[in-house]
């Protein structure tokens, strides 16, 4: 296949076996099998490579979560039972991210119980900790930082949130920590303090006006809640930024491997290409691309046109309906395979040095440990 000849083969087993790799981040567009890939890699690391592994999932499908023993959202890694680790001595733990609880924990860690209670009661905090665009990404990073700091695991595999864009995972924490650092908040709440110099007069005037407009549009209550929130969080501001920066540095370190996940569809491949470019800019270690759900005919000798024409002949001839069905389905499959290769080539042409591996589409969906094992094997031995 041309698209695969162009790119070096991604050797997943080499990454999973490397004791120097402590974090694997799976990222990509929504609906490409990110969570399944993360879980399959983690299972393989435990079963085949004897590593003490934890997988952090964000929003797994119900049946997949159940198969990993994740019946409740309790924000703590639980050991996955019933997997085959006797020979390897590895372990698999799994957890589902509880965004609100993680945020609460951060607050508790940085302040005394009385102040924490005050923060929790603030309606602004309540809204932000559950609905702020980016809180999920930030908390996924936070949880990753926590798991890493605990040092209990050889390998942490992270699934990333289903964001508007895969890049949100990188950007949202910085955005949120900037926000929580509160320069803008302070300006907004106390516009007079920053004024004076002529150079800033337009800014100051705008801000005074802005503050008034915000009061009018959103109501004065919002500003009261907001200033209560800012006052209560004051001692934590530095901490937020520092933590986000720490995690960002971990992501740039050699111990981290980013695995891009995509399906051979234009949107997913475009997203993967954006992400690859971004990782390069940020000097973050990109291990390779896992291309899921690739269709591959089992009888590649017959091309689409040949099979379609033969199916027509058989229909005219009569008596071979079942074979005609098979040939028509084969023709569709062969055509789809060609198109998928063209789509995938857009990535490999832009990033010829990034190793890639194609995983053949499974006839049925994966939602148990056996299925994950099959996927893990398919990623490793295509």
């Amino acid at each position, binding site marked *: 296949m041309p698209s695969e000849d162009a790119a070096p083969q991604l050797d997943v087993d080499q990454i999973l076996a490397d004791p120097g790799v402590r974090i694997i981040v799976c990222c990509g567009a929504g609906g490409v099998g990110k969570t399944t890939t993360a879980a399959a890699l983690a299972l393989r690391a435990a079963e085949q490579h004897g590593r003490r592994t934890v997988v952090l999932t964000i929003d797994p499908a119900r049946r997949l979560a159940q198969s990993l023993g994740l019946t409740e959202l309790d924000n703590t890694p639980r050991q996955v039972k019933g997997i085959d680790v006797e020979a390897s001595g590895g372990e698999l733990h799994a957890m589902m991210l509880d965004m609100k609880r993680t945020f609460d924990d951060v607050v508790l860690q940085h302040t005394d119980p009385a102040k924490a209670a005050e923060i929790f009661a603030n*309606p602004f905090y309540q809204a932000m900790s559950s*609905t702020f665009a980016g809180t999920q990404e930030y908390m996924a990073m936070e949880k990753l930082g926590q798991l890493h700091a605990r040092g209990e695991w050889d390998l942490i595999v992270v699934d990333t949130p289903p964001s508007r864009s895969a890049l949100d995972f990188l950007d949202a924490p910085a955005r949120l920590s900037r926000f929580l650092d509160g320069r803008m908040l302070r300006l907004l709440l106390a516009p007079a303090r920053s004024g004076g110099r002529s150079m800033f007069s337009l800014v100051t005037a705008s801000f005074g006006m802005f503050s008034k407009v915000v009061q009018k549009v959103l109501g004065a209550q*919002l500003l009261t809640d907001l200033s209560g929130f800012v006052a209560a969080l004051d001692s934590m501001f530095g901490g937020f930024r520092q933590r986000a920066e720490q995690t960002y540095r971990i992501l740039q370190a050699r111990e981290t491997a980013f695995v891009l996940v995509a399906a051979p569809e234009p949107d997913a491949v475009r997203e993967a290409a954006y992400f690859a470019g971004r990782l390069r800019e940020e000097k973050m270690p990109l291990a390779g691309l896992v291309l899921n759900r690739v269709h591959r005919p089992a009888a590649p000798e017959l091309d689409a046109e040949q099979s379609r024409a033969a199916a027509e002949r058989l229909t005219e001839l009569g008596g071979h309906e079942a074979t005609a069905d098979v040939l028509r389905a*084969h023709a569709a499959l062969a055509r789809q395979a060609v198109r998928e290769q063209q789509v995938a080539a857009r990535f490999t042409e832009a990033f010829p040095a990034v190793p890639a591996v194609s995983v053949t589409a499974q006839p049925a969906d994966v939602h148990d440990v056996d299925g994950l094992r099959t996927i893990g094997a398919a990623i490793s031995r295509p």
Partner: protein
Amino acid sequence: MRAAERPTDPAGTGWSARLHVVTGKGGTGKTSVAAALALALAAGGRRTLLVEVEGRQGIAQLFGIDPLPYEERHLADAPDGGEVRALAVDAEEALLEYLDMFYKLGAAGRALRKLGAIDFATTIAPGLRDVLLTGKVKEATTRTSGQRRAYDAVVLDAPPTGRIGRFLNVTAETARLAKVGPIKTQSEGVAALLRSPMTAVHVVTLLEEMPVQETVDAIADLTALGFGVGKVIVNATRPPLPAGRAVTAAELKRGLVAAGLPADREIVAGLHDEARDQLIRRELEDSLRADLVELGLPMVELPLLPDGVDRAGLATLAQALVRAG
């Protein structure tokens, strides 16, 4: 209901709402379906608006054009003199437009934008962004010029199923923060339109487990929130197999010989494997289709486009949507 607000369907398309909100799990093709619906509803000299709100520039990518600005512009011609226009709503621009309308901010507004204050304002109040986005959609949906409505239909390429309930439920989100003021009034107006018969929320899915599960969940969620669910749109379906049964290797071999194709062992075994996978897949699809039928909603099936979604493909989807409507 005033005459101007009555949902109409003069073209007899079966898509009677005026505002069509199209959602679906990521990867199900909701942007393509939204675009095809906008094309379908513009046929016969009508004018429709296709709107996106997530800053993804999905419409521009689909049509292979430059990124869309925050401005309604011509996107495509529809059969018989129809026109599809497109708009990418940006929350910051919408806020500035909105503030200008009420407070005449002018240059100060632009200065605030440079400072990032507008981004900041849409960030501090989580529901504010969504009110601004849906508010713009409402404005376009209800706008009139002279006696005539500006658009016969508006199609919104909405956020995916995981976020759609929260996105549309604007009043609940802003009520938590803004207890008085124009934003509250604005969000109430938007909520009234979104919950009226003028709006229908359509859910796009594939015949795969996760998208179907999310479809079922989203429909329960939307219904509980009081939104009218229109149709379940099943994308990328394959034609049924006429014989539709398992085939033996011997039978396959005879068929291949009869068709004049090579029939050596590898080819027969390969095709036999493909046929087996195909049947497993079809059985799963049938059971998923049955789950969707159980929802009791109108269902539309769109064909899988073997060459991907290009302009010809969009026209095919548009035809299928109208036929099925």
